[in-house]
């Protein structure tokens, strides 16, 4: 790839990322304007007896008295400096609130992602192109995992493995064992979708001439699957995984609630119920950032997996 092309591609990618972030910031700001009622009342709670002077001071402090256009520009200016503002409810900077909760959720999401990929890989490689009974059973199982809401799967796992057999802790995020059930809960619906797509891809690839050739060279069926077919089947899987990984943040809201784990999901729920808009906006921006990073990673992974994309003509 020539240097100029690479630069252009990078510039395009950065511009697109910035556009998504700006868009998310704008949508969040618009949502803030749509909230009925006085933001100061929201901030203080309905039972506050704050004097009008106190309310005016808060209004000035948050710039709430200015015209909307000016508020928007101020807000963008602060964002550019990395300042997400102060939480209404907990009088702390939004950035540090989010930072505190990032660890447990990142652990949960990564564990779930790894688990989902592993389970999908095993299921698809074992059943692709095999006997109809086997495929049918796997398909039905996948349909079941896709149809089961994570909050219910979580409750089932909790009932079986924490209450009945007492193998795993009921709540919290102190150690490794407390991660197992939440990660599995978050992983299962993803596993169903990924396994289906991967099996389709594998079956298509197994019918390609190169797979037939490899098999006729005497390679075992499993070796053909792992060494030849998998790389071809992996491309759609990468896109899908990127998309699903972005939605893990949404899934974390439910799973962290079921298992009583601290984290971004719990923070999102807390911010929503309290109408803590600066915090809600901060979390929306975090999610947009995760999306931007993931889609960049997906594009890079494409180049790693499929050498045919590394030529000049196909610069994305």
């Amino acid at each position: 790839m020539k240097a100029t092309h690479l630069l252009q591609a990078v510039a395009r990618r950065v511009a697109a990322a910035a556009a998504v972030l700006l868009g998310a910031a704008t949508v969040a700001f618009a949502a803030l304007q749509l909230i009925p009622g006085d933001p100061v009342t929201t901030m203080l709670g309905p039972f506050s007896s704050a004097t009008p002077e106190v309310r005016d001071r808060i209004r000035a402090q948050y710039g709430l008295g200015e015209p909307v256009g000016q508020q928007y520009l101020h807000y963008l200016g602060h964002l550019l400096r990395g300042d997400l503002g102060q939480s209404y409810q907990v009088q702390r900077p939004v950035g540090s609130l989010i930072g505190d909760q990032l660890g447990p959720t990142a652990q949960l999401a990564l564990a779930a992602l790894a688990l989902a990929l592993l389970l999908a890989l095993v299921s698809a490689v074992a059943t692709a192109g095999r006997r109809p009974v086997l495929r049918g059973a796997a398909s039905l199982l996948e349909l079941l995992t896709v149809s089961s809401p994570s909050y219910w799967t979580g409750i089932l796992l909790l009932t079986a493995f924490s209450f009945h057999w007492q193998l795993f802790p009921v709540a919290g995020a102190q150690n490794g064992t407390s991660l197992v059930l939440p990660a599995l809960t978050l992983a299962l619906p993803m596993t169903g979708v990924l396994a289906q797509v991967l099996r389709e891809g594998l079956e298509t690839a197994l019918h390609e001439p190169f797979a037939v050739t490899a098999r006729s060279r005497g390679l075992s069926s499993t070796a053909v699957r792992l060494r030849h077919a998998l790389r071809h089947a992996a491309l759609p899987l990468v896109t899908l995984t990127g998309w699903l990984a972005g939605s893990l943040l949404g899934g974390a809201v439910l799973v962290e609630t079921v298992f009583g784990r601290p984290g971004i999901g719990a923070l999102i729920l807390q911010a929503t119920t309290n109408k803590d808009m600066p915090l809600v906006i901060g979390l929306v921006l975090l999610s947009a950032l995760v999306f931007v990073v993931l889609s960049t990673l997906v594009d890079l992974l494409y180049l790693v997996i499929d050498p045919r994309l590394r030529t000049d003509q196909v610069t994305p």
Partner: protein
Amino acid sequence: MTALPTLETAPQAPADTAPRAGRRPRARTLLLVPALLFLALLVVAAAAPGLFTGAAPNATHPLQALRPPGAGHWFGTDQLGRDLYTRVVYGTRLSLLLGAGSTALSVLAGAALGLTAGLGGRVADQVLMRLADVLLALPPILLALLAVAVLGSGTVNVALAIAAAFAPGYARIVRAETLVVRRSGYVEAATTLGLSRAALIRRHVVPNALGPLLVLATVGFGSSLIAASGLSFLGLGPQPPTAEWGAMLDQGRDFLQTAWWLGIFPGAAITLTALVVNIVGRQAQARFTRRTGR
């Protein structure tokens, strides 16, 4: 930016249409009949819950609290001694309404926005689709929670929030279909024959662009139901003592250690409903794809 899979590929896996082995379509049809029967049963339960149970969903019997499933109480009783089976039956109406209402709203909003983008000229198209790009970058649950933060909690607001979360996906699909239809031969022919723009849109563009949407909405109903019950589970939807599956799971959470049935049955109702809807929806999708070749 990489083209993202929208509703049709991501949360629910695509309808695989490869006619392989000849045996699978029959297996799918085999599942279709019980699925349709169960769906009919659900509709009856939603319309006339009294047919299935003689008890009242909110009648409390403190002396019979937290009884395990058995004769007299098929699904056991909850912490207030209410019969869980009766509550699950009575919960059908609101749970289905939440799922169906939010799906209908999101399809309507998506159709309106998609048609506007597809027919309204470059500026409308650009503005709407860039907005859809941004909204699709966020997980649906997060969008729904953002909407709840703005609207406040409650049953109607949850339906609106879920509708808002799924509408961008539908809008994008309708826009794509609209563009396909606009460039098609029969629209060109109709234009040549001098059909007015309004009649053209009404008679050709709308029916042809919306067909795929309705098929997709069947599968979307499953996602909406799960998402709406999820918001109820988070305590943002119907409030106690209303019988709704997600809310029932939420209210039973504190008693799971001793009363496993409180966590099993309402969730099983959500899952079974989503499962049969998915089976029916996929079948519809597969047939539609086979018929139209799209």
